[in-house]
């Protein structure tokens, strides 16, 4: 009786461990840390930031991003050219084999155009990424936007 219980527990642990590793191994492409800075309510265009990692041996191509909460989603790159900040639309985005691409302020970002509902801090927006024939569904959280002041000179 005791032995049976012991073995079943061992089995559960074993299965759990195996399942976890197999899930990781079966997810060569991961989209993580997706978030949307909270914007003034009058704003119809928002930004999205995230990380895409590709642990496969092949390049992957993001061909489309969609969200039910926005009319259109585009991938843009902020660049400075001729003394001006401009946004370059990327029709597709390549994530090279065994590397990751980070969307962050002042660089690559999702341009979320024409929001369909009010979005405030804590809300979740579902983003659907098309990578070849695969689809990735990612929940991006609307978070309070703040720039960290990294200095330590808070003297009074």
């Amino acid at each position, binding site marked *: 009786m005791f032995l049976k219980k012991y073995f079943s527990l061992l089995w559960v642990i074993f299965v759990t461990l195996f399942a976890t590793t197999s899930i990781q191994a079966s997810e060569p492409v991961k989209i993580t840390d997706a978030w949307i800075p909270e914007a003034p309510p009058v704003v119809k265009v928002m930004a999205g930031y995230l990380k895409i990692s590709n642990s496969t041996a092949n390049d992957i191509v993001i061909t489309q991003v969609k969200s039910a909460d926005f009319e259109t989603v585009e991938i843009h790159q902020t660049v400075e050219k001729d003394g001006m*900040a401009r946004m370059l639309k990327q029709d597709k985005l390549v994530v090279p084999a065994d590397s990751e691409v980070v969307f962050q302020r002042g660089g690559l970002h999702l341009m979320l155009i024409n929001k369909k509902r009010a979005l405030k801090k804590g809300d979740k927006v579902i983003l659907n990424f098309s990578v070849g024939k695969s689809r990735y569904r990612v929940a991006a959280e609307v978070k309070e936007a*703040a720039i960290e002041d990294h200095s330590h000179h808070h003297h009074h």
Partner: protein
Amino acid sequence: MNPEPNKQSGAARPAFIILTIGIVAMLLGSLFWLYLRPHFMAPVQSGISSEQALPKEIASVYIPKGRPLAGIRLTDHNNQPFTEEHFKGKWSFLFFGFTHCPDVCPTTLLVMKAVWARMPEADKQAPEPQLLFVSVDPDRDTPQILKPYTTFYHPDFLGVTAEHKFLDILTTQVGALYGYEDGETEKDYTVNHSAQVILVDPQGHFRAVFSPPLQVDEIVKTFTAIREYHPGS
């Protein structure tokens, strides 16, 4: 024998004096070389007038001559006129952008919000500086949109805009650029714009430029140094 020592000291005295003069001359020479020479040589070498050198923390951003801003005819987000008179008596930070801008403009406004949070610490001098968000997209950014947008980032920030001919009067005087680029539809055009932050002094002169990447700590320190250095601030 008395004359002997006298003669000896007589011979030693000129040698001693010559030696002393030599040492003093060398000391003065090196003193001149070390401390005084730069004052004589520097202006000649660099071709600058006798103008005092800028403190190094502001040298890269401060415009010594400044430029008086004139002909400013903007409308603020409360529908009130904003002219060059509104620059007088306080420091002004200007940033050019548009509300349909998801990345650069919110980032810059958040940097300035963090700068504002540090400002009372940095310097309690009155009056407090003002921040102007200058929309270069007047067709879409009406005062009704500009006000909730700008004040979302800080209740004291002021949104301003104007017709293109008046916007251009300001942008050309501070070296800011902007231009439009077509989008998918006629309404979805995007605006390219300078990402610098412009500083106008309390006399209404264009006085400094902060270029990206903008760092909170750097802006606070540089501004504090400018305020200390700038005459009549």
